[in-house]
């Protein structure tokens, strides 16, 4: 059986779903961040896969690289926020951080 586009897309979909699940269910903000990484990676996979199978040159790979750099920067900011949250709340449990509640 040849590994085709569908397989990659299924993998990426699984990764995405895991990421969403992680964001929705994890209480710890770090875990949420990690789940976010999963989602981004699933996106990367899609970029690369569509670049390979589609009628494209290397735009997909370049986008994937951008995303990775962006993710690194994003994680840095997010961790800084998480640290601030920790300083304010003494925990990073996202369930209990409900200041947005109406």
């Amino acid at each position: 059986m040849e590994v085709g586009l569908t397989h990659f897309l299924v993998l990426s979909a699984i990764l995405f779903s895991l990421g969403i699940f992680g964001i929705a269910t994890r209480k710890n903000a770090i875990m949420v961040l990690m789940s976010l990484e999963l989602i981004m990676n699933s996106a990367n996979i899609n970029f690369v896969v569509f670049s390979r199978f589609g009628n494209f040159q290397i735009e997909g790979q370049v986008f994937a690289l951008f995303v990775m750099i962006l993710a690194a920067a994003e994680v840095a900011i997010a961790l800084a926020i998480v640290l601030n949250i920790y300083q304010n709340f003494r925990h990073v449990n996202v369930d209990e951080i409900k200041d947005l509640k109406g």
Partner: protein
Amino acid sequence: MTPELLLNLSIAILIIPLLSFIVLIFFGKKLGRPAGFIGTSILGIDLILSITVAFVRLLYYPDAAMFQYKFDWLNVGTNSIALGVGLDNLAAIMLIVVTLISFLVHLFSLEYMREDKRFPRFYAYLGLFTFSMLGIVIANNFLNMFIFWELVGVSSYLLIGFWFEKDSAANASKKAFIVNRIGDLGFLFGLMTIYLTYGTFLFDEVFGSINAGILPFDSGAWMTAIGIFVFLGAVGKSAQFPLHVWLPDAMEGPTPVSALIHAATMVAAGVYLTARVFPMFTADALLFVAYTGALTAFIAATIAITQWDFKRVLAYSTVSQLGYMVMGLGVGAFTSGFMHLVTHAWFKALLFLASGSVIHAMHHAMHHHNEHHMDPQDIRNMGGLRKTMPITYITFLFATIAISGIPLTSGFLSKDGILAGTLAFAQLSGHWFIPVAGFGAALMTAFYMFRLTILSFHGKPKTHIASHTHENNRFITFPLVLLAILTFWFFYSFNPLDAGKGWFHSVTQTPQIATPHNLMFDFMVQNDQAEPSSNQQVKTFEVTHYQHHHSGEHHSYRSTLEEYIHHAHTPAMILSLLVAITGILLSFIYYQFRIWDVDSIVNLYPWLYKGSFNKWFFDEIYQATFINGTVGFAKIGAWFDLNIVDGVVNFMGTLGRGLGKITSWFDFRGVDGAVNLTAWISKRLGDIFRQPQTGIIQAYLVLTIIGLVVLVYIFI
């Protein structure tokens, strides 16, 4: 002395007692006992002046009209109300009467009131009283008369209630004032009608206008009404039936006050007023006056018979004698009526002062024997005072004889004249009740006066107190003796049986009648008046001189009535002597010799005795009708005011508050409710919509994704 000087002196006589009042009311307390001497000496001066004025007037100007001094007191628009003083023969005689009795009372009180703690105050009040009384005497107009009339009322209020710690005294003074006020109300009506009709209050102007035919409301009935209105004032002040009830109660005042007020001055004021306004009475008014007097004389005498209180007997005797005077004036025996006022003044003052002397002696004896529960005024506790108090007894006896109408006394002269007048009047008009009441009262007077004398002075002392009494000192006995001398006949007429030729009659003749002849008894119309006067100026209230040609049998009478009175003189004298002696004899039979028992009569007619003893229940009847009626009205009024009138006001208030409550409820529930409802609804909606806003980002995410999925599902 000129008339002007006489008038000025009369004004001085009027003012002097007022000065005494002012000085003593302000400085009396500091002065203490000397206040009494000051008051007495001031009155002494007053007395000397009065005697001078009176003698000059009576000797030099006996025929002159009233000397007058008047000034405008109030100028109202075109009208002016004048006040003033006037001096005529009546006033001159009254000046002496008032000042002499007032002076003697002052003197008497120096001893009698010696131990009273408000001694100076008493003298101040006496001064005020004398002032007011003199004001009445020398008034020349109705308003002046009314002013001093009221002042007399007040000063008597103060004097009767002098011992105001006693409730009975305070009640008596109040009663006296209010009963007098009822009479004054009539007087006031009279004043109003007079002012309305004549626009003036001066006696001469009013009588002049009446003489000129001006009648109030052009009606003879109103003319009668004016007379009766003014006479009502006299009814109050002179204690005539039916307003006589205050006088006996007024005996609560100190005894000298009783002598002053209730014998000689205040009560005489009514008679004096009646004499003053005599010209304006119509036939009907005179009849009213005569009947009032006759009824009073009779009723009061029936009450006096059964009383046990020394002063009460005298009080009712005063009422009865005042009835005589009024009756005398009413039947047209003007001179005798007025003369009785004077003679009665002396002997009644004497009786009261003598009773004061007795009470004072009893008091002292009681005090001496530490006896405090006895009534010193009850004649049942006296007896035998003849021995212990000889001067008082003798003088009292003089007065008793005089009041009973025995010849050689002053009382006989005047009483006989009145009785002759009633006989003549009855002959001419047919009103026989009047002489019957007059003679009946004369009988009873002789009886109860001797009963009083016998029970208190004769026989054996009934209590040990009575046996230990002593004659009082000269302050008390001097007035008694002086007054006793004045009960002799020769002061008034040299003929002890007929006053008609004496000086008194010649200076106080019946004044001309001012009322139209058709309203008057024709027998009272005077001859010299019937002819039209050549002098157009009306000379009313002027004592025209008796026509001086009664040589021998030849008389010329001024009116038919005078002629009849002259003829009735002898029968009246015999009759009155007869009844007087009968009364005295009965009195001796029952009380001195006890031949017949009094109780047998009492038991024979117990209701008569009870009625008389309880003053015919006048007080009770008035209490039940007028007083309770007024008080009832007042109660109803006060209740009505508090509950109905104010109730309406409060109801309006409550109504307003109720309406307010309703609107405020509506405002709260209705108007404000609608507003609150919208707010409530939005809140509920908000509550619903805020439910998804959990604040948990993850939840939002999930929802987003679900939404996304749904959208994808819908659109793809």
